[in-house]
């Protein structure tokens, strides 16, 4: 027993495990993406996933956006009134919501709801041999289970973010006009005065990326889950945690790419 050799062996094993994981993840992501474009196509599965990721996430995303817009208006008023800059509140709310808070908060909420559900469903299918059964019935599980969810994530998230943008701005409008006494017309003029198409489009591009990340993490962790209920639970947790971290990390990267000149 040589402690130095043991340490080196431990580090080596950890590096190999990490590289193996990265390789497995990359192959999974590439195969899933390729499945979107190559036949056979499963429109029913895409429709079902769109309902689960998009439609059923509407209430939670709407409420999150509405309250975020309301809080943003209140907080901005508290800060900006010290500098007599209350007129900037409308612009701050709309730019913050469309460029940043709409896509990120919607992404985190959908990750907790739909990403977790995906991981749990695929994890259960894995541990009950349903994924193996698909293969014995001439069906590629990557094309049948993973590709439709990835596509649905990419389509559904921008639609959710459009709703989040509208409701976030509406939340700011309601607080500003009802509680803070702003003139409704002036508030709306200020809202659209500094808003450019780029602001909304960049948020929608982020939403597409976040939708892909949420679906990919949900599918990846669910697909490779092992053991019984404990394995499915662990896969669900990993899916939500990894998707949330990746959303925040990729948000920085995308912001850097989209807004830095």
């Amino acid at each position: 027993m040589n402690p130095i050799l043991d340490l080196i062996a431990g580090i080596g094993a950890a590096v190999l495990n990490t590289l193996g994981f990265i390789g497995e993840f990359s192959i999974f992501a590439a195969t899933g993406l390729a499945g979107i474009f190559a036949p056979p196509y499963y429109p029913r599965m895409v429709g079902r996933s769109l309902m689960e990721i998009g439609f059923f996430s509407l209430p939670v995303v709407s409420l999150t956006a509405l309250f975020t817009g309301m809080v943003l208006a209140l907080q901005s008023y508290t800060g900006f009134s010290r500098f007599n800059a209350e007129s900037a509140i409308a612009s701050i709310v709309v730019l913050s919501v469309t460029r940043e808070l709409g896509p990120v908060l919607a992404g985190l909420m959908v990750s907790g709801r739909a990403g977790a559900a995906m991981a749990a469903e695929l994890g259960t299918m894995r541990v009950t041999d349903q994924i193996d059964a698909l293969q014995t019935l001439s069906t590629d599980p990557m094309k049948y289970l993973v590709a439709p969810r990835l596509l649905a994530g990419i389509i559904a998230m921008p639609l959710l973010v459009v709703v989040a943008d509208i409701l976030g701005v509406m939340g700011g409008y309601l607080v500003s006009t009802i509680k803070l006494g702003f003139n409704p017309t002036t508030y709306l003029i200020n809202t659209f005065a500094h808003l450019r198409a780029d602001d909304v489009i960049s948020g929608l591009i982020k939403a597409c990326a976040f939708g892909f990340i949420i679906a990919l993490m949900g599918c990846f962790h669910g697909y490779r889950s092992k053991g019984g209920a404990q394995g499915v639970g662990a896969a669900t947790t990993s899916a939500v945690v990894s998707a949330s971290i990746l959303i925040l990390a990729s948000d920085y990267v995308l912001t850097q790419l989209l807004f830095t000149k």
Partner: protein
Amino acid sequence: MTPKIKIRGLKKSFGAKKVLDGVDLDVFPGTAMVVIGGSGTGKSVLIKSIIGLITPDAGSIEIDGEDVLKVSRSRAKELRAQIGMLFQNGALFDSLPVWENVAFGLLAENKIRRRDARGKAVEVLAQVGLAPNVADLSPSELSGGMQKRVALARAIASSPSIMFFDEPTTGLDPIMGAVIDGLIVDCVKRLGSTSIAITHDMASAVRIGDTAAMLYEGKIAWTGPAQNLLASDNIVVDQFTHGRRQGPIQMALRK
């Protein structure tokens, strides 16, 4: 006679654990082979290797004279498309109604139009003794015995020439086990299929098997007529089939 399935030198390890260590097995057309063996001896790994769910480390698996491990992926897929599988716990898709489960393979292979699928599923369900009203139920609404029957219906729906049964009577009471065995024998005979079943249930093994093989320490330790299982003079088979505490299997566990 040329075997329908011919396995030679099949090996599979998981880490340091050798599960299959040179399995040789022949299954002849139209016969029913039963593979018995203790828990964790690799029976499921053997079946999953033939189906393509597990890639073996070494050896060959021939179906109709073609090695599925050496032919192209598309050809291997074609060869394996003639296999129907009954999983131990049924593995029914719980997001789909019973009829869609039964017709799933036919729809996937474009052998049937969606509008005709329910009718075909009802027809196949009748072959396993289930009424048409079961077709619209969800798998979670069925008892264990009914789930096994639906899983059997799904396995036979595309009239496979090879069928695998993984512990078909596990979790069922003796009468329902006998019913499932009877259905398996009927379906296999009617389709003229070649079958491999793995089981711990000796009564089931004798009922559904023409020939039997004992998997022990990663190899086939014995083969012979299934009717001779309970009267075998092989000490491994004798100990296993009679559930004796003393014998080579117990000694192996103590290592």
